[in-house]
């Protein structure tokens, strides 16, 4: 059956592919490998192509990229920024700024590119993200802020990236939060969709790792209740998440990453020092007291009890 003529006449038979450049700053390559896990890679590459990518076949190698400094539809930047960090002999200051000014859109891929991340810890004064330096909007691309989308996460989820690329390709507006993170991805908390939510609600803690029961927020340092991210909605590698495997969320999507003492919950008079997002301490205390007074047998025993 032929498609309606109205559609065929407005759709170019062979639309130009979106041209993308993947540039690396100070990085572990974790976002590159995270991206390669995207099962939708084939579909993505039907409508877009890389002028440069550190691992995938592409039209320009690093030397050619630095020599030509080409225009692109999307510049994806992975890793932390430092002005004098070099790629193929060119300082990042010049390389990033030139490529960014010639790009239609820019994506800060991962927490290093977003806020400085782990590598900022080595040289806090000189290392930052491309738009943000921790919470401060003082990075090298601050003049181009409207072009920048932040995809924080260590690493960022491949689907988060393909979502943003697709939105850009379709020229759709991406609603963003204060750190220019897409709301469709970061309005959720890691806590949303966590399989242990019921234990959180009834204030049942998890005594130890390696069990299905209990909430990791009270003792094990889980940052899920105040970390923006859709890890428990858009699952990792299609199947799981940190909290689903019993590992506390380490808050890797936030500008504060990496905090210290990551597997301990800081408490103040035995109350978690950091509250679930938007919950006033006083209300929390009242609620926690009430919730704890319930002794729900089901939540105090094993989830799967062989002897029951």
């Amino acid at each position, binding site marked *: 059956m032929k498609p309606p003529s109205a559609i065929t006449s407005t759709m170019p038979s062979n639309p130009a592919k979106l041209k993308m450049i993947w540039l690396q700053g100070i990085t572990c390559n974790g976002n590159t490998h995270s991206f390669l896990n995207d099962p939708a890679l084939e579909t993505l590459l039907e409508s877009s192509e890389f002028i440069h990518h550190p*691992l995938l076949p592409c039209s320009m190698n690093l030397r050619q990229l630095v020599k030509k400094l080409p225009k692109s539809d999307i510049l994806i930047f992975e890793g932390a920024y430092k002005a004098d960090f070099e790629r193929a002999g060119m300082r990042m200051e010049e390389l990033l700024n030139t490529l960014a000014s010639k790009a239609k859109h820019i994506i800060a891929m991962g927490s290093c590119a977003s806020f400085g991340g782990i590598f900022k810890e*080595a040289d806090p004064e000189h290392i930052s993200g491309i738009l943000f330096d921790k919470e401060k909007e003082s990075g090298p691309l601050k003049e181009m802020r409207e072009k920048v989308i932040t995809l924080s996460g260590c690493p960022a989820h491949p689907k988060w990236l393909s979502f943003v690329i697709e939105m850009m390709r379709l020229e759709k507006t991406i609603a963003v939060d204060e750190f220019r993170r897409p709301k469709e991805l970061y309005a959720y908390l890691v806590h949303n969709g966590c399989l242990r939510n019921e234990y959180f609600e009834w204030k049942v803690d998890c005594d130890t790792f390696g069990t299905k029961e209990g909430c990791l927020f009270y003792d094990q340092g889980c940052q899920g209740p105040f970390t923006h991210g859709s890890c428990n909605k858009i699952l990792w590698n299609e199947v799981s998440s940190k909290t689903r495997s019993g*590992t506390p969320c380490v808050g890797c999507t936030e500008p504060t990453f990496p905090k210290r003492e990551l597997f301990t919950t800081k408490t103040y008079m035995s109350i978690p020092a950091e509250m679930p997002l938007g919950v006033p301490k006083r209300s929390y205390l009242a609620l926690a007291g009430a919730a704890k007074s319930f002794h729900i047998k089901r939540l105090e025993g094993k989830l799967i009890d062989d002897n029951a």
Partner: protein
Amino acid sequence: MITHELIERIEGEAVLDFKTDKSGHVQEASIRFLHFRGMEAILEGRNALDALVIAPRVCGICGHSHLIAAVRMLENLYASAGSAVKVTPKAHALREVTRVCELMQNHIKWLYLVMLHESGKLLGKEPQVALRALYASSQINQMSALFSGQWPHSSYAHPGGVTCDPTHIEVMQALKLLSDVERFIEKDVLGCKTENFEANMDVESLLLMEGDFGTLLRYFERLDLLDLGKSHGRFLVLGEDAHEITPNERSYAHIDFVSEDDSQTFAHGGKTYAKNALYRGKFYETGPLARAISTERSGVSALYQQYGDTALTRITARIDEVVSLIAYVRLLLTSLDFTESSFIPPVSIESISGKGVGVVEAPRGSLIHRATVEKGKIASYSIITPTQWNLGNGTYDSPGIAQKAMLGIESTAKASLIFRTFDVCSVCTTH
């Protein structure tokens, strides 16, 4: 003549400085890694358990190996402080599943994104994006994530076991993925059943193989590189099944003989950020070939007896490792006993002071994490990565492993390809 080649499409970049004679043959080669990130300093002063989050970030492709090295370091620390930690066979097996998953996905990416691409380029045929291979590697990472929560960068291994508490449903999913991956290996990589591959590991049969691995060997043959790339013939495995193997001797290896040499670094007027890793003061090759000889895997050992540590043997060892690991993962998955605990809590890390060392066989070879901890805080942290072993810079008289393998090769382009047979990781090395 002196030439400088920027080597890309490794993990990060490196520069090779070649000295060639009039005909272009390589007389000397030195290796520069130009970046440095200071991971060890980032770890210092932190709670020792934070290493389980920070250390994996050394590397995006073998971060899980860094996690396992860090957790072994912590367990060794507990033991040396007199508070030995118990890990159940189940928790150990789960760590093994996820550890070797990382090896398998790495080797597949190396074959398709690096080797077929770079050797094809020299012969005028650049392959397209290897989508099927990337899909298979994503399935392997999915297998790992069923237990570890995510790949890359999970922190699910802790002193005392693992944080997850899986059921047989995850095992079923993992076995299904493993079968899919095995089909990919047989159909695309080997072009035959794994049994046939393992039973016919002679050069004539290998060169006739229909899969992409056969294509790679044929590319190397056309480039006249198949029987080149020989190095010192000294091998080291420090993680699982620790052995040192030299042309004359085979014995158990011990970490006490490991040292780092910074004479070639910028700190001492050299030209790289990477330190050399040495065993008994000498360069040793680590990685899949060392492991194959150490565990006496029959096919690769026979190839080694006949052809030595050539490109042929080195490439085959990496592919053969994937095949042998499929069987190993299946065995691990089918023998899990879910009645055992996932985690046995150790005493608080804050009560622990002392030294710890953790060694693991990572995709590219032996990875070592050492730390000194005072009352649960990291006082010092030191990492030696596999690429430091294989790509160290020696002197003219005593070249490093990859340096020696490149000597005498007829062009710098071909020497660069030999360099890649070691599966270079710049990001690990410049930690």
